[in-house]
């Protein structure tokens, strides 16, 4: 699967750190492993990479609030003038009990006195640098079970409020305290939580067990509370790219996992046999799924098995090169390209920046809708979120959605690097609000289980099971953005009282309980007739009659009427997958994005990918072919021949490239939308401009209008 997570293994740790945009902190010195610079020694991230070795902060006590306190402080070889700060640190002691040397290092927390202005840290990171005494005084929101990132011990976790943030803290007897950002906005947390509810799970779970040792009892057991909403099926682990942050592809010499068409067909039918609600949306993923030699046949089988929605999770590079293949893919049944696309500049999107234009065009010709999927990493590409929405609006004829995925930091990672890269759903939403200058605000977003209010109403009315998005409220959020005829951008909640609607539907469900069919219909009719009250017709897009569309949804009892909505709008989604640091078992037991495996097991995304050593890699290995055997079977194959080699010069000189990037409009800069350009609007600057275009290259930036 191209890039849903960042996996920082030991081998690519250095590279990931080097690729961080450390800004002024990186430039200011390399004496300390501290990234927040509060101690004044201000080192860059490179120093952190060395923390396992012989570098550290000479100020010793970790007073700067950096994760370097967890490093081997005693070995610090670098000296600098921190004598005053050292003196101050000496007065603060957190752990007073006697400990072993191992415990001493691991239980030591950075100490920051927040009442001392000289000790103030970057507010973004302050929540990581409290003393345990301070943390324990924070208001507790919820208790859950989580996992120790180091030893995988299942331990209690406490979700607590720290200023505006929602944090999770946990204590492992061996590895001591750990804290992590859970959500970056308490107000949004409480709003989203209102829509949380428990689903029904499967009547026929694939694995017999009650999940006492969750998440190590997985296979979709009795404990799981949500049916498969989106089924992922890996059809190959080969990939033509080797992204530094991706771990989901076969490296050289590793076994090749590529099930046959018949095996995949069996997996599809297994997903469709789930009760009471079979999977209906399928994502064919990899590796790079387009590298499977029989991918069209695989899609055809999936369609035949009964999936209504089939997505291809791909970089789009192969389809861009072969528009005819895109048409075949569409004809076989795949209607959506779930395309990795991490930014709108070469720096943020080295994966497929040059190939996106051809992929868009191939899909345009084949009439395949595109969901752009940026993996958002703080400090890497979070500054381009608004620009990515603007890019999608520029290609609204083919782009249906932008589904942001705040990064999941899987694997070993120094604390400080983690806190720099961490971004959660509200963090990303706030970035969008800032970058679009309030056109898309945080109150426009709703959590995914919000939709549950609608399907509960339909079930109560008809007695038929409906697709149930009962995932955990912290896993996803979404909104719709309408682009009206006059280029006015209108988020859906500007003209629909979404909260009021769900409340109205929930009241109707409560009223229907215990009533007969006729009474249920009467209640439903009364509710539906009241629905127009929740729509502000003055504010709704001129090209849309929303109340009519809503009526169609309820009266047809399916969501096909939503198709009309998609054709005039951009769906904005957020999906935040977990990692060991944020792990919450309440979330994983409600997961509805599942992976189906060749041994018949079905696994939630966040066990499959967070514990690959006991699920993903283990099961795939059982059904894989050793690289040497694969080579014998495919004499013309070799690892390097699989890899894509980009000709930047050639790509940049195509008219399509120029059309896509040079002539981009800034919808946010239009007076009707406030007139302020979106932040970081990409400046079109090809590395190899065409000679004939050099004179007439259009400056992409729009003059800034101050209101």
């Amino acid at each position, binding site marked *: 699967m191209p890039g849903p997570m960042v996996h920082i293994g030991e081998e690519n740790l250095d590279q990931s750190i080097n690729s961080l945009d450390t800004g002024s902190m990186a430039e200011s010195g390399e004496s300390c492993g501290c990234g927040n610079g509060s101690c004044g020694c201000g080192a860059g991230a490179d120093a952190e990479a060395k923390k396992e070795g012989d570098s550290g902060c000479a100020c010793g006590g970790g007073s700067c609030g950096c994760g370097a306190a967890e490093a081997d402080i005693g070995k610090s070889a670098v000296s600098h003038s921190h004598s005053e700060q050292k003196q101050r640190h000496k007065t603060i002691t957190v752990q007073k009990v006697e400990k072993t040397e191992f415990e001493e290092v691991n239980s030591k927390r950075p100490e920051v006195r927040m009442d001392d202005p000289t000790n103030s840290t970057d507010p973004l990171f302050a929540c990581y640098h409290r003393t345990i005494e301070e943390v324990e005084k924070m208001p507790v929101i919820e208790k859950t079970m989580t996992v120790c990132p180091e030893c995988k011990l299942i331990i209690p976790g406490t979700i607590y409020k720290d200023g505006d943030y929602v944090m999770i803290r946990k204590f492992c007897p061996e590895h001591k305290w750990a804290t992590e950002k859970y959500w970056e906005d308490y107000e949004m947390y409480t709003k989203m939580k209102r829509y949380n509810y428990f689903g029904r799970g499967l*009547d026929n779970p694939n694995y017999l067990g009650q999940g006492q040792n969750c998440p190590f009892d997985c296979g979709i057991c009795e404990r799981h509370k949500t049916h498969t909403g989106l089924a992922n099926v890996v059809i190959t682990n080969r990939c033509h790219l080797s992204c530094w942050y991706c771990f989901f592809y076969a490296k050289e010499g590793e076994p090749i996992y590529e099930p046959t068409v*018949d095996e995949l067909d069996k997996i599809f039918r297994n997903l469709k046999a789930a009760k*009471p609600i079979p999977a209906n949306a399928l994502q064919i993923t990899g590796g790079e799924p387009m590298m499977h030699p029989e991918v069209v046949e695989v899609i055809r089988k999936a369609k035949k098995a009964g999936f209504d929605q089939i997505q291809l999770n791909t970089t789009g590079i192969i389809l861009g090169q072969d528009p005819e293949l895109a048409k075949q893919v569409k004809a076989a049944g795949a209607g959506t390209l779930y395309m990795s696309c991490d930014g709108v500049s070469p720096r943020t999107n080295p994966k497929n920046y040059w190939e996106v234009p051809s992929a868009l065009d191939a899909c345009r010709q084949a009439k395949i809708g595109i969901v752009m999927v940026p993996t958002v990493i703080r400090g890497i590409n979070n500054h381009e979120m608004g620009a990515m929405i603007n890019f999608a609006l520029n290609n609204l004829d083919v782009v249906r959605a932008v589904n942001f995925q705040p990064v999941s930091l899987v694997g070993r990672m120094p604390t400080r690097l983690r806190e720099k890269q961490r971004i959660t759903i509200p963090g990303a939403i706030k970035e969008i609000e800032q970058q679009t200058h309030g056109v898309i605000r945080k109150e426009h977003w709703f959590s995914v289980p919000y939709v549950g209010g609608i399907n509960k*109403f339909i079930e109560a*009315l008809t007695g038929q099971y409906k697709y149930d998005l009962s995932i955990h409220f912290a896993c996803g959020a979404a909104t719709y953005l309408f682009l009206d005829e006059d280029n006015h951008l209108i988020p859906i909640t500007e003209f629909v009282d979404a909260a009021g609607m769900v409340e109205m539907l929930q009241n109707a469900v409560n009223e229907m309980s215990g009533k007969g069919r006729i009474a249920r219909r009467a209640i439903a009719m009364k509710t539906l007739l009241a629905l127009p009250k929740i729509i502000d017709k003055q504010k709704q897009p001129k090209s849309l009659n929303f109340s009519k569309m809503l009526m169609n949804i309820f009266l047809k009892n399916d969501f096909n009427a939503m198709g009309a909505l998609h054709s005039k709008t951009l769906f904005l989604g957020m999906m935040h997958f977990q990692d060991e640091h944020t792990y919450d078992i309440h979330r994983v037991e409600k997961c509805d994005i599942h992976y189906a495996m060749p041994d*018949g097991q079905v696994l939630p995304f966040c066990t499959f990918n967070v514990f690959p050593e*006991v699920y993903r890699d283990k099961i795939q290995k059982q059904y894989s072919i050793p690289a040497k055997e694969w080579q014998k079977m495919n004499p013309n194959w070799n690892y390097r021949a699989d890899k894509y080699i980009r000709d930047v010069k050639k790509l940049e000189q195509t008219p399509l490239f120029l059309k896509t990037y040079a002539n981009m409009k800034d919808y946010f800069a239009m007076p009707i939308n406030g007139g302020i350009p979106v932040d970081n609007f990409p400046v079109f600057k090809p590395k190899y401009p065409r000679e004939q275009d050099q004179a007439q290259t259009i400056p992409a930036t729009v003059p800034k209008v101050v209101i």
Partner: protein
Amino acid sequence: MDRRDNQQIEKTKELEEAKSETEDSGQADPGSERARGVSHFIEEGGKRFRMPYTIIRKVTFSNLDQNELIDIPHVARLQYRLLLFDAVIKAKVDYHKKFIRIIYNPPEADNIKEKISRAKLIEFLAGEGVHVSEAKENMEEVPYDYQKELYNYAYFPPSIREAPPYGWTREEWKKHKAEEEKARHRMEHPTAIDKILGRDKPKKKGSGFKLHP
């Protein structure tokens, strides 16, 4: 030299080794069992499916000392650690019932996957602080048919429960479901009256509930 260059050197060496082995042994038959990464296949409806294991072993150590298991979190971690062995297909450690059940691939099994002996498992458990006994009353080891007991269960799981749709109590739902089934039966086996009344025709998509019929 950057990381990529390093990788390329290693890769080239590996490729050369792989190539030389390929040349030595000649081209493999693509249909051969080993070439598909497994030693066994099953047939269903004329189609072949890979089966990495056939008959393996299931060992259950019971009457364990609960103090050695410590508590449920430690038990879950022990289960995780057992699962880290490639040759352990499934593991279950139960704190309350004081047993450990391991489905593993023994050295004598007829397959080409990683293998582990029971002695190794016992040694590993001892290393984790859990001392199991091989006495008859404390240990049971039986053959385990991977295909029948694990693979087939996962592919054809029976229904173990039934939840009503939202807004319906269990009793209401049972009544409603019985009516639905009756209607379906009538549609499949219509009487002459049903045909006259049009009950043999499927309903239009949706519930048929219309504000303006």
